[in-house]
Every structure is written in C-alpha cells, then in structure tokens.
C-alpha cells in the first residue's frame, strides 16, 4: 500500500471538509493495511478455487458449498461485518471522516442517488430482458465492495478529497443495502417479538459490560454477539449483521487513525484487540466465503449475469452525479475539486460489488439457478474497476489530470 493513501488524525482534524489527509507512519496512524484490506487479497483466491472447482467437478463442489453455506454465510461472515462496523465507529471519532455529521450530508445524498440509479437501471434492464423472476434480487446492485473501491480510488485519486467522499458514499450505500435486506424476509409477529426481546437483551448486556468497564472483547463477542445473532435469526433479519449493533459498545480509541489504517502496537483498547484477534479468522472466513459463494458455471452467461454489472456500471454513476448535483443545487456545499467528472469516476469506481454483492445475492435469493446468475453478475462487477481507471484517464481526473 502506498503512503499516499494513509491518513493521520492530526492531518484530518485540522483540515477542511474532505481535504486530503496528511500522511504519517508515526503517531496514532499505522500503515494502511487493516485486516479488511488484507482480506481483500485472500478473497479472490477463494473465488478462483470456487470457479475452478465448480467448472470441473460441479457435483462435488455444490455438495461442499451447500454443506458450508450456513456456517460461512450466516455465522462466520459476522466477523467481517463487525470489522466493517469498527471502521465506521472509528470514523465518527474526532479525526474521522464521519466526525460531525455535516460532513456526511453530501455523500449520503450521493449514496441515495447511486442506490436509486443502480436499482432503477437493474429493474429496467430486467424488464426489457423479460426476466421478472430476477426482480427479487433488486437489492444486489446497492452493494459496493469498499475495500476494492478503496484500492482503485487510491490508484485514480491518490490524496484527493474525492477519496474520503467515495468511501463515505460506499459505506452509506452498503448500509442502505443492509437495511433493505433486513426487510426482505419479514418474520411473523411472534418470531419478531421474540427476536426483538433477544436483541434488547443483547444491547442491555453490552451496556452492562461497558459500565462495568470490561476491557476484554470476549464477553461482548460471546454473550452479546450470541444473543444478537439469535435475535436477528429468529426475527427474520440476516444474522450476519449480529455484531453490528454490539461493536459500538466495545471500548475504543478516542481519535480515529483513519479508514483502513492498521492500529499501532501502542493501541490496546478492546476494539483494536478484537481487530487483531480476528485477523486470521476473518482471512479464513473470507477465503471460505469466496469458495462457498463464487462457484458459478462460466460457460453460460444468463440474463442475471449481465443485469448486475450493467446496473452498477451505468446506473450508479448516473445516480451519483444526478443526486450530488441536485443536493448542491439545494444548498449543500460542493467539495472542492470534485466536479461532475470526478463524480462520474467516483460512481464508476463504486460500481464494484464483488464480496458485498455476493453476500447481498445470497441474502436476497434462495438457492437455485437464478442465484447463480446473480452471483456471476456480482463477480462481473469487477469490470467496473478497469472502466473507472479508463474513464479517469479519458476525463483527466485525479492523477491522470496532472
């Protein structure tokens, strides 16, 4: 990871909104190589294994994938979303890109535009293809693989103010997608009540642990996490999000070191120790996530395979540009150096759904051929990364403008 993409708290705190952070390897900030980013390099290996296996020995692959789908997609992946939440929680601290919600207004508008644009194009595309059955996967185009986008954006923008804007856009877009997924399969009132009761118990125990100043993350993980998981599972919400409401209660640092920045050895708070502990489990989970979910038949590209990349590559940039310009016209302040060309490139960069889109697909669609089509589409969104770099080159955006 290049130095240009690391942040420092001091740099961010004193800078204007979305101004580029000052690079530092000292102090609170470490190098930009969090567990999440490192996992980025492991996931493709899992995907490659799955593609090879599914296209050579499909029967044994699908038996294996079915057997492991639940433990990986509904239990193991909990750790991945916990680390995502950690990034967001820390971003709200002083020095973080989400500190003061005023910063978030424009990216929220852009994220909403991107969600509407990508879902709109998705449904339109399916309508013209005559594939009404696939409409149930409408939430998939909301997905943005934040880690991949971060890397691609680093290549395009370097230390440009567009980078934190893009990251916030991606975080909010995924948050919208996750919220939508939570509503996809509503449980009956009885289960909902029991699920809510368990969730309340999870949150109450998290508050209790925090008040008793527990400095180890284990009780949060085992007691609160288990209660939360059961609450979501019984309540019909995807249990992969079990640690999302728990993570904010873990004792954490008072300042943010920056998104995807590796904590320094001096940092010993519970949240940081949780991140350190989860390194290998998360690597293993993401590798297995790739193996279990990315095995799709390559020989037949179906309608669903095209719908997802078309929706994210065409719909998201259009939605991002339109919503941001509308928000600016409505009174929000334009970020210096981020005009329509940068917004277009940001939209294109965030078209990569990959791991998150795979997750959204498995959450939205039950097992069957249409799920395979949608997963293939999730993998094909990787093309957005190349297109974004190409577009940036044509439009002379970021590093290509110098």
């Amino acid at each position: 990871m290049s130095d240009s993409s690391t942040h420092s708290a001091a740099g961010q705190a004193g800078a204007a909104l979305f101004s580029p952070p000052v690079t530092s390897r000292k102090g609170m900030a470490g190098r930009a190589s969090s567990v999440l980013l490192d996992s980025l390099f492991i996931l493709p290996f899992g995907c490659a294994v799955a593609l090879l296996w599914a296209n050579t020995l499909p029967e044994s692959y699908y038996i294996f994938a079915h057997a492991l789908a639940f433990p990986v997609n509904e239990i193991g992946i909990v750790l991945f979303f916990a680390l995502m939440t950690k990034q967001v929680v820390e971003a709200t601290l002083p020095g973080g890109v989400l500190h003061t919600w005023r910063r978030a207004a424009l990216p929220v508008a852009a994220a909403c535009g991107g969600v509407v644009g990508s879902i709109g194009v998705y449904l339109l595309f399916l309508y013209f293809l005559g594939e009404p059955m696939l409409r149930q996967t409408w939430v998939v185009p909301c997905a943005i693989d934040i880690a991949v986008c971060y890397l691609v954006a680093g290549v395009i923008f370097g230390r440009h103010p567009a980078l934190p804007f893009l990251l916030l856009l991606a975080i909010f877009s995924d948050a919208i997608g996750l919220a939508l997924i939570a509503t996809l399969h509503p449980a009956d009132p009885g289960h909902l009540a029991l699920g809510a009761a368990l969730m309340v118990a999870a949150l109450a125990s998290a508050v209790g642990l925090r008040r008793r100043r527990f400095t180890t993350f284990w009780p949060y993980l085992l007691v609160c996490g288990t209660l939360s998981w059961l609450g979501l599972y019984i309540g019909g919400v995807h249990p992969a999000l079990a640690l999302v409401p728990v993570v904010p209660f873990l004792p954490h640092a008072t300042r943010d070191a920056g998104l995807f920045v590796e904590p320094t050895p001096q940092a010993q708070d519970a949240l940081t120790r949780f991140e350190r502990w989860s390194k290998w489990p998360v690597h293993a989970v993401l590798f297995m996530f790739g193996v279990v979910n990315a095995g799709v038949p390559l020989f037949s590209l179906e309608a669903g395979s095209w719908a997802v990349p078309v929706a994210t590559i065409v719909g998201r940039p259009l939605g991002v540009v339109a919503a941001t310009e509308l928000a600016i016209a409505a009174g929000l302040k334009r970020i210096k150096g981020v005009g329509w060309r940068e917004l277009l490139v940001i939209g294109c960069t965030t078209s990569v759904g990959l791991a998150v889109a795979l997750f959204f697909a498995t959450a939205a669609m039950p097992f069957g051929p249409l799920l395979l089509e949608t997963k293939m589409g999730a993998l094909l969104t990787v093309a957005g990364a190349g297109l974004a770099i190409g577009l940036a080159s044509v439009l002379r955006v970021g590093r290509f403008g110098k």
Partner: protein
Amino acid sequence: MRRDDEESSTMYPRPTRRPRGIPVQLTILLVLASAVWGVGAQQVTFPNAPKSVKFGVIGDSGTGGQEQFDAAKEMAQARAMFAFDRVIMLGDNIYGGQGPKDLVNKFAKPYKPLLDAGVKFYASLGNHDDPANRAYPLWNMGGERYYSFSTQNVRFFALDSSQLDDKQLAWLEDSLKNAHEEWKICYFHHPIYSNGGRHGSSVDLRVVLEPIFVAHGVNVVFAGHDHIYERLTPQKGIYYFVEGASGQLRKGDTKRSSTTAASFDSDLSFMLVEVAGDQMTFQAISRKGQVVDSGTIRAHPRSPVAAASDAAGASTLGF
C-alpha cells in the same frame, strides 16, 4: 398445496371403438423418420385404456408466436384420438410482457380448443414467468409457487426451481413421504439432467433434489428450460425428460452424450403421456404431428429404501 382430483375418466367422452394408435402406414413412415432423426426407439402406441390417466406436457411455450399456435393446434388434434384431460406446464409459460393481455395472447388463445374442451392446465413457473401469475385461474396453481395434486394412482408435484428455499424442500420431502400413489411425478423448469447446449444440467439443483427423489421413490421427472426435447437414460432409477420446445426452439442444440436416450431438436414438440396401472406410455410429438420418440415405463414396485439403493439406475424401460 395438496389437491385430490376425483374427475378423470367420466369428464370427457371416451372412444367408443377399440383403442387404437396411429395407422400402420403412418407408423412405418414415422419409424423411418425416427431413423433419419436418430431417435432410434421403435414407436410405442398408447393403450388408450378407458380409465387410465392421460395428460399432456408442454414447456417453454408462451411466445404467442405462430409456432406455438401450430403446436397447440396439433395438440388439440391429437386429443381427438387420445383424450387427455390435463396438461402440465414446465415453466416459461409466458415470455416478455406478463399482463392480462399477454396471458390471453400467449396462453388462452393458443390453447383455446383444449380449454374449451375442459382440459385443465397445471403450471410450474420458469425464470421468464412473473411469480404473480401463479394466481392466474387457468393455471390451477392455487396461488402457490409449488403444489401437488393427484388423480387415481398418480400424484404430481409442481416445483419452483428458480428459488428452491428450505421451506419448499421441506414441503417436498414431506409431501413425497406422505404420498401413497403408485406414481410420483415431479415437474419444474430447470432440468437437473439435460444435454441442451445452451443451459445443460442444473447440477446445483441436482445435488439437492436427486437424493430426495431417490429416497422417496419418484418415478419420472419432467423439466424444460433447454428448448429441445430430450429423454435421458434413467438416472438412479428415475426417468428424466426435457420438454422445452413447445413454443421456442433452439435448433440443433442437443449435445448428445452417453446420458441421451433420445432427442429431437429440429422442430417444436410436446408430449402425451398415459398411465395405466403400473405402466406409463409416452410419446413426444412434433409440431407437424410426427411421433419423434415414444416408450413405456413401468413403475418400480419398490420401497423408497430399495429405490435409494439402486444407484446403478437399472432400467425397467419396456421399449
């Protein structure tokens, strides 16, 4: 989702003369034609027994094009000699627009002669179908994505293969376990065995469905999706058919393999089936009325456990 029909034999006029098949001259022509097409099997005529279960099979039908009308017309003509009283639909029942007008133009109009004669259609959903159309009365789905119904000694199971959730699988397993009919016939859209070049076998579905079929003594499975007709060699004792060419055709799309027992991919087709006691007779018929494949299957008088142990797929096919 489980319905028992009592109608069958008295609903439609029975042939007063001795049951008969296709005339001898035509049979000779058809056998010659079969040899040319590489179908290979000798034509088997229907017993046309008075109290047998007779049904038609169509898949990927709903284009609203002239070809669909032609095949439907041929089906109606076949009914004059072979009075089937129901048709199972293997999905992609309507392509493109899914509104009320489309249901008329791509289903009710082409099959009007059959509908007027009281033939009941039982649909399963394909990837091109709007799930909302499961409430369409003429498809007799009772508003369900998956359901079963029976007549005499046959129970049909219509599945939604596009989204095979845990609930549906549990229902299927339970329904099969509680079905006491001699014949258990499953039908759905995506084939778990197919040599169609465009799609082929849905192996992901196979690893889940096949063990259930084998364990609970399913005899025959019909599917569509690939726009061809194909009969597979028995797999673990179960007979698989692909009939996805009742409205759309993908000419020459069959990639014949060792699992292809017979195939036809040069014109549209549909199937007619008769179940008389422990014997099932089938014919695949082209849009021009030619029998392109036919045969007889006997129900295995075996317990589900015995069927499960028959991994070699020993054939009881009586061609």
